[in-house]
């Protein structure tokens, strides 16, 4: 009798253990952009990046976990959405995970001549193993933004060819170094922290929550811009 009772409790506990144990998400929280994606032969990226200037981009999107129920891609000009089951979803040759290859051809005089990054939002109705994820991809524009610099972002130092993007937790200090003297346009939006001069041509920016845009100009007129993204939450994905 006691034996059966114990088994009943054990099975019950096992069933409870199978119920949802994922990390709760909050709509109001600005999460780290951490969706994986690849651009043709350019390379693999995670979350936030800048692509070199190309005529077109074959962007392979690889959201964490399972296939999302909805993927929304958006620029300053277009919004495209893909639902599970669309023919655009391509099965990967190996394994069960699926990917979406999106051919992005920036529209002339709209998407290629202004601040117009591509964003990706992946949404899940059932997030036991997968949760929403995002990416932010900006593009170099040598005609408009040609001022080179060096950015040390979240511990990594990279050369910026006119267009830079940096993501780290809000409040963390990032470094931008120019080869020459610059002036800054007013920071946008105005509540974002301004760049702080340190020495030489080194500037530091304490990240504000969300997206802030910074634009610098050398005395010769060359421009550089930086999108600095400060997040407040990281999503932990069980099993990935």
């Amino acid at each position, binding site marked *: *009798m006691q034996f*059966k*009772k114990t*088994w*009943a*409790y054990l*099975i*019950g*506990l096992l*069933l*409870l253990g*199978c*119920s*949802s144990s994922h990390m709760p*998400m909050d*709509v109001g929280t600005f999460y780290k952009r951490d969706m994986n994606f690849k651009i043709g032969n350019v390379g693999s990226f995670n979350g936030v990046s800048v692509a070199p200037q190309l005529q077109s981009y074959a962007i392979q999107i690889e959201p964490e976990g399972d296939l999302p*129920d*909805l993927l*929304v891609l*958006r*620029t*300053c000009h277009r919004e495209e959405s893909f639902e599970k089951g669309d023919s655009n979803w391509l099965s990967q040759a190996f394994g069960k995970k699926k990917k979406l290859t999106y051919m992005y051809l920036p529209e002339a005089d709209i998407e290629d001549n*202004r*601040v*117009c*990054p591509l*964003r990706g*939002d992946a*949404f*899940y*109705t*059932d*997030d036991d193993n997968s949760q*929403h994820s995002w990416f932010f991809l900006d593009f170099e524009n040598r005609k408009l933004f040609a001022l080179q610099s060096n950015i040390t972002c979240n511990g990594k130092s990279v050369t910026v060819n006119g267009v830079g993007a940096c993501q780290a937790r809000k409040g963390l200090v990032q470094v931008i170094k120019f080869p020459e*003297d*610059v*002036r*800054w*346009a*007013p920071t*946008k*939006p105005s509540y974002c922290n301004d*760049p*702080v*001069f*340190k*020495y030489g041509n080194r500037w530091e920016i304490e990240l504000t929550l969300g*997206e802030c*845009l910074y*634009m*610098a*100009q050398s*005395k010769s*007129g060359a*421009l550089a*811009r930086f*999108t600095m993204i400060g997040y407040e939450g990281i999503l932990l994905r069980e099993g990935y």
Partner: protein
Amino acid sequence: MWSGIFAFLMQVVSFILNRITDNEETKKKFFDFIRQAANDTKSTKLMKWGEEQLAYLEKTPWKSSKPNKPQ
């Protein structure tokens, strides 16, 4: 024995109710996020901010942003 069976059934019911509640919460959150994404104006904002910054740099004479005295 009956108490054991009763306890087991209670656990099953509790499990099913948990799953239903979780599902509803997950779906609600999914649509909350969709609504948020639908109202998202970040792309347009960045574009406008960029235009404003460019306009400022075009119309204002160049002057270094360095303070007179190093900090």
